[in-house]
């Protein structure tokens, strides 16, 4: 009897909501019939039957949230078999009879439900942020929601701010960042573009020259390579070339770096690329609070900002201060965890490895101080150096390519400013020096992990 399993509807989906059954137990089912609707945080998808028969059991009632991928949800029996309402059908997920649905475009990959908070080792020891006034009420919010609320707040505040990009409007955002914004702000301010990054980035940059404040969403920063001439030659350099006359208040934002299993052309981390350019500011938040506060700061900044998000972090929840106008200043790092033995410096998704490693190491009595850069350019090297002067050891962590990277720059700066304080050479943990492979095992090998960070920390401690 074929068992129907909860399907994965995107590369990064781990769970979803079974929103509706369109067949009931006892119904005759033939290939191609829609059985149920599954809601991810991106879209509602239909699952179709592949086998013919009678729906003999439904194990997950409609309305259930957080249904894990590959969990059995129903059973289709022989056409002649009698329906057995309520029958339990415990089936191993490895039964090989998963009913696969046709998935949407692989690059539009939603994450698990926003309402589900996934705990991550180390997260609990995040220091309270000194920028948040004492007694401020905190609300739980995903990075996705934080970005959306930041953009919406700024668009309410300033009519010159608008959002443009592929699928930001009617589709509600390829990653649902802009969900609902078309309804609130209308098509003049939430603009769907054709799939022409080079052209629409140039148009947005020209609009910024004229004084508007565009937010340009790249479906991923991998596609921004088509537009990089305008980002660098037009947006970043014009203030200088004009002797200070022209401004370019613009935010280029979107997911950057590896998602999951999307191959070499959709997985690159561009942090180091953009951080090399005078005239650009580069922001790469980890937490939802920083994503919100930095996005608001970026939109108000009169300069071109590269705002690097991370797809894996979109669905992750954090505490965000409930303030009318929560702004995190660009160019300031944050001590995410205090410690005396080793400094770990990271940013964006690298923070997940850094904090998890710090949590593991604490159990062994090694106290790491974790610095979240938050802004890569201009880099708050002062905060890093102050920490290194205290701990005398440093591990730098990023997901991007290891050569000519953010961690290379960190190592050089630390050497320049804290050479006499170092008790070990600065260690670096980064992605491997290879194009991103597709195979699950190889992809895992290509990315840094918690154990790499733990090993690097032990390395600089010579333990």
């Amino acid at each position, binding site marked *: 009897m074929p068992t129907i399993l909860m399907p994965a509807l995107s590369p990064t989906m781990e769970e979803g909501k079974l929103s509706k059954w369109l067949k009931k137990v006892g119904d005759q089912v033939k290939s191609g019939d829609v059985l149920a609707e599954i809601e991810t945080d991106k879209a509602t998808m239909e699952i179709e039957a592949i086998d013919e028969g009678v729906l003999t059991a439904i194990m997950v009632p409609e309305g259930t949230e957080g249904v894990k991928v590959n969990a059995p949800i129903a059973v289709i029996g022989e056409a002649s078999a009698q329906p057995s309402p309520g029958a339990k059908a415990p089936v191993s997920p490895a039964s090989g009879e998963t009913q696969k649905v046709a998935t949407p475009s692989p690059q539009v990959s939603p994450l698990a439900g926003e309402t589900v908070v996934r705990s991550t080792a180390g997260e609990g020891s995040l220091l309270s942020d000194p920028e948040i006034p004492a007694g401020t009420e905190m609300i739980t919010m995903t990075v996705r929601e934080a970005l959306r609320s930041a953009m919406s707040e700024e668009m309410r505040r300033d009519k010159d701010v*608008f959002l443009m990009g592929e699928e930001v409007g009617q589709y509600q955002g390829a990653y649902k960042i802009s969900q609902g914004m078309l309804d609130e702000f209308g098509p*003049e301010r939430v603009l769907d*573009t*054709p799939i*022409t990054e*080079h*052209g*629409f*980035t*140039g*148009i*947005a*940059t*020209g*609009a*910024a*020259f*004229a*004084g*508007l404040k565009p937010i340009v969403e790249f479906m991923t920063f991998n596609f921004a390579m088509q537009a990089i*001439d*305008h980002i660098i*030659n*037009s947006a970043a350099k*014009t*203030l*200088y*070339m*004009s*002797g*200070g*006359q*022209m*401004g370019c208040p613009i935010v280029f934002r979107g997911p950057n770096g590896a998602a999951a299993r999307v191959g070499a052309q959709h997985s690159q981390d561009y942090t180091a690329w953009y951080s090399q350019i*005078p*005239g650009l*500011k580069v922001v790469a938040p980890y937490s939802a609070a920083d994503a919100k506060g930095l996005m608001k700061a970026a939109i*108000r*900044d*009169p*300069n071109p900002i590269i705002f690097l998000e991370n797809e894996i972090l979109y669905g992750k929840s954090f505490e965000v201060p409930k303030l009318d106008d929560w702004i995190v200043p660009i160019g300031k790092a944050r001590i995410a965890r205090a410690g005396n033995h080793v400094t770990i410096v990271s940013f964006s998704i690298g923070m997940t490895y850094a904090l998890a490693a710090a949590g593991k190491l604490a159990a062994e009595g090694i106290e790491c101080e974790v610095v979240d850069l938050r802004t890569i350019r201009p880099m708050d090297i002062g905060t890093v150096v102050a920490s290194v002067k205290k701990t005398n050891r440093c591990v730098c962590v990023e997901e991007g390519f290891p050569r000519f990277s953010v961690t290379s720059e960190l190592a050089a700066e630390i050497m320049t400013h804290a050479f006499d304080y170092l008790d070990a050479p600065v260690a670096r943990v980064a992605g491997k020096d290879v194009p991103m492979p597709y195979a699950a095992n190889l992809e895992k090998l290509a990315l840094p992990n918690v154990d790499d960070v733990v090993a690097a920390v032990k390395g600089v401690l010579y333990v």
Partner: protein
Amino acid sequence: MAVSSAYLARKAAKAEKSTKSSAKADLKNSGLSSDEELKAYYDMLLIRRFEEKAGQLYGMGSIGGFCHLYIGQEAVVVGMEMSAIEGDQRITSYRDHGHMLACGMEAKGVMAELTGRQGGLSKGKGGSMHMFSVEKQFYGGHGIVAAQVPLGAGLAFANKYRGNKNVSMVYFGDGAANQGQVYETFNMASIWKLPCIFVIENNRYAMGTSATRSTAASDHLGARGEAFGIPSEQVDGMDVRAVKDAADRAMEHCRSGEGPYILEMMTYRYRGHSMSDPAKYRSKEEVQKMREEHDPIEQVKARLLKSNRASEDDLKKMDADIREIVTAAADFAVADAQPDASELYTDIYKVA
């Protein structure tokens, strides 16, 4: 080959064109008033004399790097500017001196930028290819071929977003017309109905490569707009009257909310692509023929004299005035101080 032998032949035969470019585009008897004709003469001659002086200063080593002269193409910007109103924007490539002078930017500031001095329009930090004026709505001055096309459409986007009646004039050459971003821009300008005039300055040569060698259907680039539903006209860009006439129609189209418009200006540059270009890719005779038979300034001069709107003496006086302005600009540009070393680190970020 003259402006375009095919083009001239077609004109002679009064052939109908395939796009909206109608017989209207070839009408030259719409005429300019005396004042307009005199102003056109003055503005074109100022560009001519300015560029000649710039060429001279380059030869003397006062101007470095790249320097692209506009000599021969003066009627295009001058005719377009005659149709512009307050608040209209203009943007172009690196062959930009003429565009700046035509919209009223000071010769002194332009020349001092060419020599890299503190009194230059970009404080000496931009150079020949990179000058801007917020006051005159001149948005550069761009060194990447065709980058100004989407940027200029972005200026038009801002006009539409703000609901004003202004139009963005986006200049690019026949070489840039082969860049992909031009067509990405045509597409978006058309679907969003951006008030934008794409002015293709077809001077027949993309640096040293003739349009016939690099460009499909090179004698009618405006027709490329058809695929995007953008009307176009092919215009005798050596005749300031024809340019102004076509610009009026294009402006009207854009201001009435009908979206973008393409004007393909058939023009010619007398000098090389840049100062270091010996222009071996074309014959001296070809250049000579253009100068003698189609020079934009001589055409106006002949009309002014013939119609007794101006005397030889009037025009000589005008030339002398212009030479004075240009000489003063050059004197300033070589005497002015270089930017202070502290300027190296200014204007990288704007402070909120």
